[in-house]
Protein backbone atom coordinates (compact mmCIF):
# COMPACT_ATOMS: atom_id res chain seq x y z
CA UNK A 1 0.00 0.00 0.00
CA UNK A 2 1.39 3.35 -1.07
CA UNK A 3 0.03 6.72 -0.02
CA UNK A 4 -2.46 8.02 -2.60
CA UNK A 5 -0.85 10.20 -5.25
CA UNK A 6 -1.97 11.12 -8.74
CA UNK A 7 -0.07 13.52 -10.94
CA UNK A 8 -1.46 15.06 -14.13
CA UNK A 9 0.51 17.06 -16.68
CA UNK A 10 -1.20 19.80 -18.67
CA UNK A 11 0.80 21.31 -21.51
CA UNK A 12 -0.28 24.87 -22.37
CA UNK A 13 1.58 25.48 -25.63
CA UNK A 14 -0.02 28.89 -26.23
CA UNK A 15 1.29 30.29 -22.96
CA UNK A 16 4.41 28.13 -22.84
CA UNK A 17 3.45 26.62 -19.50
CA UNK A 18 3.41 23.13 -18.08
CA UNK A 19 0.96 22.73 -15.22
CA UNK A 20 1.53 19.81 -12.89
CA UNK A 21 -1.53 18.89 -10.87
CA UNK A 22 -0.56 16.98 -7.75
CA UNK A 23 -3.45 15.16 -6.11
CA UNK A 24 -2.87 13.42 -2.78
CA UNK A 25 0.29 13.39 -0.67
CA UNK A 26 3.95 12.97 -1.52
CA UNK A 27 5.80 10.91 1.06
CA UNK A 28 8.59 8.36 1.31
CA UNK A 29 6.34 5.58 0.02
CA UNK A 30 5.47 7.21 -3.29
CA UNK A 31 7.92 10.00 -4.13
CA UNK A 32 9.44 7.92 -6.95
CA UNK A 33 6.23 8.65 -8.85
CA UNK A 34 7.09 12.35 -8.71
CA UNK A 35 10.63 11.57 -9.88
CA UNK A 36 9.21 9.82 -12.97
CA UNK A 37 7.11 12.89 -13.74
CA UNK A 38 9.99 15.33 -13.32
CA UNK A 39 12.03 13.24 -15.78
CA UNK A 40 9.16 13.40 -18.25
CA UNK A 41 8.96 17.18 -17.79
CA UNK A 42 12.66 17.51 -18.52
CA UNK A 43 12.20 15.90 -21.92
CA UNK A 44 10.19 18.89 -23.12
CA UNK A 45 11.07 21.62 -20.62
CA UNK A 46 13.17 23.53 -23.14
CA UNK A 47 10.01 24.49 -25.02
CA UNK A 48 8.34 26.10 -22.00
CA UNK A 49 8.85 29.17 -19.83
CA UNK A 50 7.08 28.02 -16.68
CA UNK A 51 6.55 24.77 -14.85
CA UNK A 52 3.77 25.32 -12.34
CA UNK A 53 3.12 22.74 -9.65
CA UNK A 54 -0.52 23.24 -8.71
CA UNK A 55 -0.87 22.01 -5.11
CA UNK A 56 -4.58 22.75 -4.72
CA UNK A 57 -5.33 19.10 -3.99
CA UNK A 58 -2.00 18.23 -2.37
CA UNK A 59 -2.12 17.96 1.39
CA UNK A 60 1.46 17.16 2.32
CA UNK A 61 4.95 16.86 0.80
CA UNK A 62 7.84 15.13 2.57
CA UNK A 63 11.50 16.11 2.42
CA UNK A 64 12.03 13.46 -0.29
CA UNK A 65 9.51 15.27 -2.47
CA UNK A 66 11.02 18.69 -1.81
CA UNK A 67 14.40 17.32 -2.75
CA UNK A 68 13.06 16.40 -6.18
CA UNK A 69 12.00 20.00 -6.82
CA UNK A 70 15.55 21.15 -6.14
CA UNK A 71 16.84 18.36 -8.36
CA UNK A 72 14.57 19.50 -11.19
CA UNK A 73 15.65 23.10 -10.68
CA UNK A 74 19.30 22.09 -10.94
CA UNK A 75 18.67 20.12 -14.13
CA UNK A 76 17.03 23.17 -15.70
CA UNK A 77 19.90 25.41 -14.68
CA UNK A 78 22.59 22.98 -15.80
CA UNK A 79 20.96 22.57 -19.20
CA UNK A 80 20.53 26.33 -19.43
CA UNK A 81 16.79 26.01 -19.92
CA UNK A 82 14.75 29.17 -19.38
CA UNK A 83 11.82 27.45 -17.65
CA UNK A 84 11.11 28.62 -14.09
CA UNK A 85 9.51 26.43 -11.43
CA UNK A 86 6.56 27.88 -9.54
CA UNK A 87 4.14 26.54 -6.95
CA UNK A 88 0.50 27.58 -6.76
CA UNK A 89 -2.32 27.03 -4.26
CA UNK A 90 0.12 26.05 -1.52
CA UNK A 91 -1.55 25.20 1.79
CA UNK A 92 -0.24 26.37 5.16
CA UNK A 93 1.33 23.04 6.08
CA UNK A 94 3.34 22.76 2.87
CA UNK A 95 4.24 26.45 2.99
CA UNK A 96 5.56 26.03 6.52
CA UNK A 97 7.77 23.12 5.43
CA UNK A 98 8.98 25.07 2.40
CA UNK A 99 10.03 27.90 4.69
CA UNK A 100 11.77 25.48 7.08
CA UNK A 101 13.79 24.19 4.11
CA UNK A 102 14.33 27.74 2.82
CA UNK A 103 12.65 26.98 -0.49
CA UNK A 104 10.91 30.34 -0.47
CA UNK A 105 14.20 32.02 -1.36
CA UNK A 106 14.57 29.99 -4.56
CA UNK A 107 11.09 29.38 -5.89
CA UNK A 108 8.06 31.51 -6.55
CA UNK A 109 5.40 30.28 -4.16
CA UNK A 110 1.80 31.40 -4.47
CA UNK A 111 -0.60 30.53 -1.66
Amino acid at each position, binding site marked *: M*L*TNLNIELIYDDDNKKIEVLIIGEID*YSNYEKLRQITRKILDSANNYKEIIFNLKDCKMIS*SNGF*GLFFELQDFLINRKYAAKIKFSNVNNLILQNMK*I*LKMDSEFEILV
Partner: protein
Amino acid sequence: MKICILKSKKYIAITKFIIHKILDEKKIADQKIDNILICINELLANIIGHTTSKYKDGTVSLLLNIGGDRIIFDIMTEDEKIDISNEFKDSAFRKNYSGAGLYIIKNYADEFYYEHKANKNFFKLIFSLL
Protein backbone atom coordinates in the same frame (compact mmCIF):
# COMPACT_ATOMS: atom_id res chain seq x y z
CA MET B 1 -1.04 0.94 21.24
CA LYS B 2 1.85 -0.80 19.51
CA ILE B 3 2.47 -1.05 15.77
CA CYS B 4 5.16 -3.27 14.35
CA ILE B 5 6.14 -3.03 10.68
CA LEU B 6 8.70 -4.55 8.35
CA LYS B 7 11.42 -2.22 7.09
CA SER B 8 9.77 -1.48 3.77
CA LYS B 9 8.48 1.86 2.51
CA LYS B 10 5.14 0.32 1.58
CA TYR B 11 4.29 -0.01 5.29
CA ILE B 12 4.68 3.71 5.93
CA ALA B 13 1.33 4.55 4.37
CA ILE B 14 -0.60 2.06 6.49
CA THR B 15 1.25 3.18 9.62
CA LYS B 16 0.28 6.79 8.96
CA PHE B 17 -3.30 5.69 8.28
CA ILE B 18 -3.55 3.84 11.60
CA ILE B 19 -1.97 6.67 13.60
CA HIS B 20 -4.24 9.20 11.89
CA LYS B 21 -7.30 7.13 12.80
CA ILE B 22 -6.25 6.77 16.44
CA LEU B 23 -5.49 10.47 16.87
CA ASP B 24 -8.68 11.44 15.10
CA GLU B 25 -10.71 9.26 17.44
CA LYS B 26 -8.98 10.95 20.38
CA LYS B 27 -10.16 14.32 18.99
CA ILE B 28 -6.64 15.59 18.48
CA ALA B 29 -6.61 18.82 16.44
CA ASP B 30 -6.12 18.35 12.70
CA GLN B 31 -3.05 20.58 12.58
CA LYS B 32 -1.38 18.60 15.36
CA ILE B 33 -2.17 15.35 13.54
CA ASP B 34 -0.62 16.74 10.35
CA ASN B 35 2.55 17.72 12.20
CA ILE B 36 2.78 14.31 13.86
CA LEU B 37 2.29 12.45 10.58
CA ILE B 38 5.02 14.54 8.94
CA CYS B 39 7.41 13.54 11.73
CA ILE B 40 6.44 9.85 11.58
CA ASN B 41 6.96 9.82 7.83
CA GLU B 42 10.35 11.52 8.07
CA LEU B 43 11.55 9.29 10.90
CA LEU B 44 10.44 6.04 9.23
CA ALA B 45 11.99 7.26 5.97
CA ASN B 46 15.29 7.74 7.80
CA ILE B 47 15.09 4.40 9.59
CA ILE B 48 14.13 2.40 6.49
CA GLY B 49 16.20 4.41 4.03
CA HIS B 50 19.40 4.12 6.05
CA THR B 51 18.98 0.60 7.35
CA THR B 52 22.10 -1.49 6.98
CA SER B 53 21.90 -4.67 4.90
CA LYS B 54 22.44 -6.87 7.95
CA TYR B 55 19.22 -5.57 9.50
CA LYS B 56 17.09 -4.95 6.39
CA ASP B 57 14.78 -7.86 7.17
CA GLY B 58 14.08 -6.57 10.66
CA THR B 59 11.15 -4.64 12.03
CA VAL B 60 10.36 -1.22 13.41
CA SER B 61 8.10 -0.98 16.45
CA LEU B 62 6.13 2.12 17.35
CA LEU B 63 4.59 2.47 20.78
CA LEU B 64 2.02 5.23 21.01
CA ASN B 65 0.93 6.70 24.32
CA ILE B 66 -1.65 9.45 24.62
CA GLY B 67 -2.07 10.75 28.10
CA GLY B 68 -2.48 13.97 29.99
CA ASP B 69 -1.20 16.77 27.86
CA ARG B 70 1.23 14.78 25.73
CA ILE B 71 1.45 12.32 22.87
CA ILE B 72 4.53 10.12 23.08
CA PHE B 73 5.98 7.83 20.43
CA ASP B 74 8.66 5.33 21.40
CA ILE B 75 10.16 3.90 18.22
CA MET B 76 12.67 1.08 18.23
CA THR B 77 14.54 -0.88 15.61
CA GLU B 78 17.50 -3.20 15.57
CA ASP B 79 20.29 -1.60 13.57
CA GLU B 80 23.65 0.09 13.76
CA LYS B 81 24.05 3.49 15.34
CA ILE B 82 23.05 6.39 13.15
CA ASP B 83 24.70 9.76 13.14
CA ILE B 84 22.17 12.42 13.99
CA SER B 85 24.73 14.93 15.15
CA ASN B 86 24.97 16.68 11.80
CA GLU B 87 22.87 19.76 11.92
CA PHE B 88 20.77 20.55 8.90
CA LYS B 89 22.54 22.82 6.45
CA ASP B 90 20.33 24.17 3.72
CA SER B 91 23.39 24.29 1.44
CA ALA B 92 23.86 20.53 1.90
CA PHE B 93 20.19 19.81 1.25
CA ARG B 94 20.46 22.01 -1.83
CA LYS B 95 23.39 19.94 -3.07
CA ASN B 96 22.35 16.41 -2.11
CA TYR B 97 18.55 16.79 -2.04
CA SER B 98 18.46 14.87 1.23
CA GLY B 99 19.24 15.19 4.91
CA ALA B 100 16.34 17.39 5.92
CA GLY B 101 14.10 14.82 7.58
CA LEU B 102 15.47 15.08 11.11
CA TYR B 103 15.57 18.85 10.81
CA ILE B 104 11.86 18.88 10.00
CA ILE B 105 11.18 16.57 12.97
CA LYS B 106 13.07 18.89 15.33
CA ASN B 107 10.91 21.75 14.09
CA TYR B 108 7.62 20.00 14.82
CA ALA B 109 8.23 17.73 17.80
CA ASP B 110 8.33 19.37 21.21
CA GLU B 111 10.96 16.87 22.32
CA PHE B 112 13.10 14.43 20.33
CA TYR B 113 15.51 11.89 21.80
CA TYR B 114 17.76 9.29 20.22
CA GLU B 115 19.76 6.53 21.86
CA HIS B 116 21.69 3.51 20.57
CA LYS B 117 21.86 0.61 22.97
CA ALA B 118 22.54 -3.13 22.51
CA ASN B 119 22.41 -2.92 18.71
CA LYS B 120 19.11 -1.10 18.84
CA ASN B 121 18.11 2.42 17.90
CA PHE B 122 15.59 4.07 20.21
CA PHE B 123 13.76 7.24 19.26
CA LYS B 124 11.32 9.17 21.39
CA LEU B 125 9.04 11.84 19.99
CA ILE B 126 6.93 13.96 22.32
CA PHE B 127 4.19 16.30 21.17
CA SER B 128 2.55 18.66 23.62
CA LEU B 129 -1.21 19.04 23.50
CA LEU B 130 -1.20 22.33 25.41
